[in-house]
């Protein structure tokens, strides 16, 4: 009887290197690892240690072992700053997603010949000074700035107060970080098999349904990456609130900066920094978990 065939197994990927080889590469790890230990890990440790210290009589920070700084943070004002920061950052992420996804989608799927040029056009503004762009926004949006002048000229409105509002802060953050959403989503759309979209339509899903049932899930990794890349800087930013914010738009970043450069209370600033790090760690763990699960499934 003819030899039977079975489904060939998916071939396992493997790395094949001899031991001596590995040792050689191991030495290469030494300088960068030493550098990171000396300048990054140790500095984070100092922040954590100092967060348990206090300000000495001469105004210098002193190490200690008291939780007073953390206790001080547990009051309504600081909590509301945290809450506000999280809300602003979340809104920013949402806006970046709502704006960034369609843009990435259009460039990736309908960019055609101009695709590379469009990506370049996307990146260029982000290499022009962040501060200057933010400042340009503040002049553009001011009550007698160009935007309001244009509105008045078209007779659309008697002037809108854009600047110095929570909306302006979130808009500034969105403007600043939307590229971190567009690029990973674009990359994942580029990697996606376009036949998937056709398969969705083939199976009786209209364009919109296909998008939600097929395209979006297929680019989940890019979206998650974008969310993380936007959330991290948005939560730590202090420039947008400073340049575009109003009296009640203080964020964690402003608070930390205030403690270090205005009040000169470094231990309290360190405690704030630690809390911020912990908050971000929670998001990171969540992200790693979900990507890890994806990887394990493959």
């Amino acid at each position: 009887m003819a030899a039977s065939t079975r489904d060939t197994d998916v071939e396992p990927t493997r790395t094949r290197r001899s031991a001596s080889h590995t040792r050689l590469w191991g030495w290469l790890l030494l300088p960068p690892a030493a550098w990171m230990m000396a300048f990054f890990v140790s500095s984070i440790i100092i922040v954590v240690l100092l967060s348990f210290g206090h300000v000495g009589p001469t105004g210098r920070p002193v190490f200690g072992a008291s939780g007073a700084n953390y206790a001080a943070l547990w009051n309504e004002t600081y909590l509301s700053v945290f809450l506000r920061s999280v809300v602003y950052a979340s809104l920013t992420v949402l806006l970046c997603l709502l704006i960034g996804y369609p843009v990435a989608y259009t460039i990736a799927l309908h960019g055609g010949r101009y695709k590379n040029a469009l990506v370049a056009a996307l990146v260029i503004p982000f290499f022009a000074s962040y501060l200057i762009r933010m400042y340009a926004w503040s002049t553009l949006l001011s009550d007698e700035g160009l935007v309001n002048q244009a509105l008045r000229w078209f007779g659309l409105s008697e002037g809108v107060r854009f600047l110095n509002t929570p909306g302006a802060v979130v808009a500034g953050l969105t403007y600043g970080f939307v590229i971190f959403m567009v690029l990973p989503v674009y990359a994942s759309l580029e990697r996606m098999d376009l036949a998937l979209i056709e398969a969705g339509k083939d199976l009786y899903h209209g364009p919109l349904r296909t998008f939600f049932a097929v395209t979006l899930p297929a680019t989940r990794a890019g979206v998650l990456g974008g969310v993380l890349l936007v959330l991290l800087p948005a939560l730590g930013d202090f420039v947008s609130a400073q340049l575009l914010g109003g009296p009640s738009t203080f964020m964690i970043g402003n608070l930390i900066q205030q403690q270090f450069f205005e009040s000169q209370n470094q231990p309290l600033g360190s405690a704030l920094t630690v809390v911020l790090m912990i908050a971000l760690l929670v998001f990171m763990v969540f992200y790693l978990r979900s990507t890890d699960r994806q990887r394990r499934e493959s």
Partner: protein
Amino acid sequence: MTTLDAAAASSATPSATTPVAPAPARRRRRSVEGRPRIAVAFTALFFVVLYLPIVVVVLFSFNSRKSLSSFESFSTRWYVQFFNDDALLSSLRASLVISGVAMVGSLILGTMLALALERVSSRPSRILGTTALVPLVTPEIVTGVAALLLFTGLGIKLSLMTVIIAEITFSISYVAVIVRGRLSAMSDDVEEAARDLGCTPFQAVRLVILPAILPALVASGLLVFALVFDDFVLAFFTTGVDPQPLPVRIYSQIRLSISPAINAVGTCMMLVSILLIAFSLVVPRLFGRRDSGLDLISGG
């Protein structure tokens, strides 16, 4: 007469004597037929908004008045002022030095890291390697605060050096990620082929691996240069008595009263970055790659 082997007629059989064009690679269609007008319009609007403040910066850099909200007439006085402003110029110089040194330093360390991460599979080294990637996901304000405390804690005077150290620490990860992406796309076989052809392990790196990752090095170098040049937060926390990096100077001006000379600075910076990007697009082509540095930046 000929023996027609399957479809000798269909395409010129790639005979050995006549050079043939590369086999028609299976193309993947990369676009969908029919353009949704709304999406295109939305994207166009997005680009308008994206460039609006930049247009304003460029426009007002040519304003004859100090005002940033009403344009009076064309003048180059702010460029003249910029090129006569020693403080601004020395800041520009400082920024260039910082970016240049940080670029070289992080390229060296980051490439080492990428090579090691790609090749070493032992557990402790992997943990070490992962730690080196943490700065990538740490908000700059945290890194900045930590660096400031580290330097003042160790009694190191803040200077250009401390800015450079902080910027390198922060950039290593970028280089490592980009170079590693290139390395992992490269088949192990290439290195083994070099060994097979008589290279020692070191020669294999020098003669084969480094040339192969050159485009990634160029791309990540330019990226780091641009990021560091524009970085404000880290520089703000770690700068000392030396001339302040440009972004820090801009920040201290913005907090008080800004001079339109800053718009001139911004316009110049943007010109430089456009040149850099164009360069990073072109350089890989010089090495004959179809992928460009931009793909690497965008993670494509």
